[in-house]
């Protein structure tokens, strides 16, 4: 599903943040991505989201070399990838329903065609009664559930999460992890960056550890 081959990354003329990464990720798997702050977790996720190009090496996804994709193809690829951020990044002036429906809307679909789908998903993440609420009145956990719903509304094959529990209470973190777990059981490949030890202890997923620009796998 994902294959990195001798991938290196540097920003501008700075030092190499990621050095010579070579690995494969199987479809349907769930990986924690850990490492100290500044070790390059976000950068690696941005490579996977195709919002950053590697300085060297090749990345292929879904069996296709994505290192030099043209814009249209890149857009199509990106629609198979969902992303969740630590800061939620919901649009503040849109309701929960509208935020979650956004991926449908940018594909030019009519509200009638996706309304039921969005409602069902909001019920599933437990936000059925908060559909018309603006992000400002939601708690951190609710915002993150809305963000997760937005990331998976168009049924991506890969779900990336960048410290999704960073702004959420520890008990709620666990409940969010159960959401990811269920999504994984339904077939979504998940890479979740975190450095929260309690989560790493509680959930027994294989870990990708980033340190000094190098990646090691721990099952």
């Amino acid at each position, binding site marked *: 599903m994902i294959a990195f081959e001798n991938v290196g990354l540097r920003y501008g003329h700075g030092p190499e943040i990621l050095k010579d990464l070579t690995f494969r990720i199987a479809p349907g798997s769930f990986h924690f991505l850990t490492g100290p702050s500044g070790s390059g977790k976000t950068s690696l996720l941005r490579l996977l*989201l195709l*919002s950053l190009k590697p300085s060297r090496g090749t990345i292929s996804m879904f069996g296709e070399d994505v290192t030099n994709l043209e*814009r*249209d193809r890149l*857009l199509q690829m*990106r*629609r198979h990838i969902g*992303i969740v951020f630590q800061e939620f*990044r919901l*649009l503040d*002036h*849109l*309701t929960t*329903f*509208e935020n979650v429906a*956004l*991926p449908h*809307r*940018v*594909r*030019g679909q009519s*509200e009638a065609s996706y*309304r039921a789908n969005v*409602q069902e998903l*909001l*019920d599933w993440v437990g936000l*059925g*009664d908060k*559909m018309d609420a603006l992000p400002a009145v939601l708690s951190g956990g609710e915002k993150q559930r809305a963000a997760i719903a*937005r990331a998976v509304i*168009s049924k991506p094959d890969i779900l990336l999460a960048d410290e999704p529990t960073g702004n959420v209470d520890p008990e709620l973190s666990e409940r969010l992890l159960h959401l990811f777990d269920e999504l994984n059981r339904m077939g979504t490949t998940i890479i979740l960056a975190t450095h929260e030890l309690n989560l790493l202890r509680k959930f027994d997923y294989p870990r990708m550890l980033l340190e000094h620009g190098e990646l090691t796998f721990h099952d």
Partner: protein
Amino acid sequence: MTEPRKIGWSRPTPIVPSQSVAGRTLMLLIGIMTFLSCVTFGGVLLVQKSAVGWSADVGREVTIQIRPLDGEVLESNLRLAVSIAEGVPGVSSAHALTLEESERLLEPWLGAGLDLSDLAIPRLVVVRLADPNAADIARLEREISAISGASLETHAAWRVQLNTMAGTIVVSGILVLALILVATALAIVFATRGTMSTNREIVDVLHFIGASNRFIAGEFQGRFLMIGLRGGIVGGVAAILFFIFISAAMSTVMPEQSSAQLGVLFGQFSLGVAGLLGIVGVVLVIAGLTAITSRLTVRRFLSQIS
């Protein structure tokens, strides 16, 4: 379970929030630019129309001037000039001004109650042309030269001057219009870039959930087209009101006579159908300019950041 959402729900909230677009300021600016463009356009049109009309009026008439010379009988020379002129193709009528008519012409300059018979004043034959283009002016001039003291005044030099002046005003007007359009475009570029930077987070979010640049550009430039149209209409309506006001002011404030003269001069200040169409055209051009400029700016911004 939750209540089903209302069917027939009104239009979705715009993805680009309206208060984040510097809409009102930009609309005012576009309104003012449209107003200036329309007034310039209207002014140019009036000058152009008046000059053409005036020039045509003057062109339909030539004047034969006969200076009194010793040993010549002025009255018979006048009659001869009239009959020569009437024999030339393209002339519709020729008429020698009587002494009284000449006096009346000179009255504003020399005062009432003057007696021209004491003065050696040239006498005039006014020749009206049926068709200025077909009239054989050269032949008229040749035949008239047989009369001693007679000369032909075609106002040609004067018309050239009038046309040059009108042409200069038209060219300046077009230049001013072009500059206004360029200034408007620049203002739109700045406003659009400002709006894009303000909404950078929205642009980024839209990008990572898989929105195409085309979609994002559409969300932004739809806003600008509306602003452009509204500003344009406000400016256009203001310009029409301005012209109505001016022409009303002309007919009430001004004494009747001078207003009539101004009317002759400026075609009654009425823009007519052509003028109204022109103003609508200016409004459309400015709205279109807004749409195209903001589209290009948005596209440039998006391709720069991705």
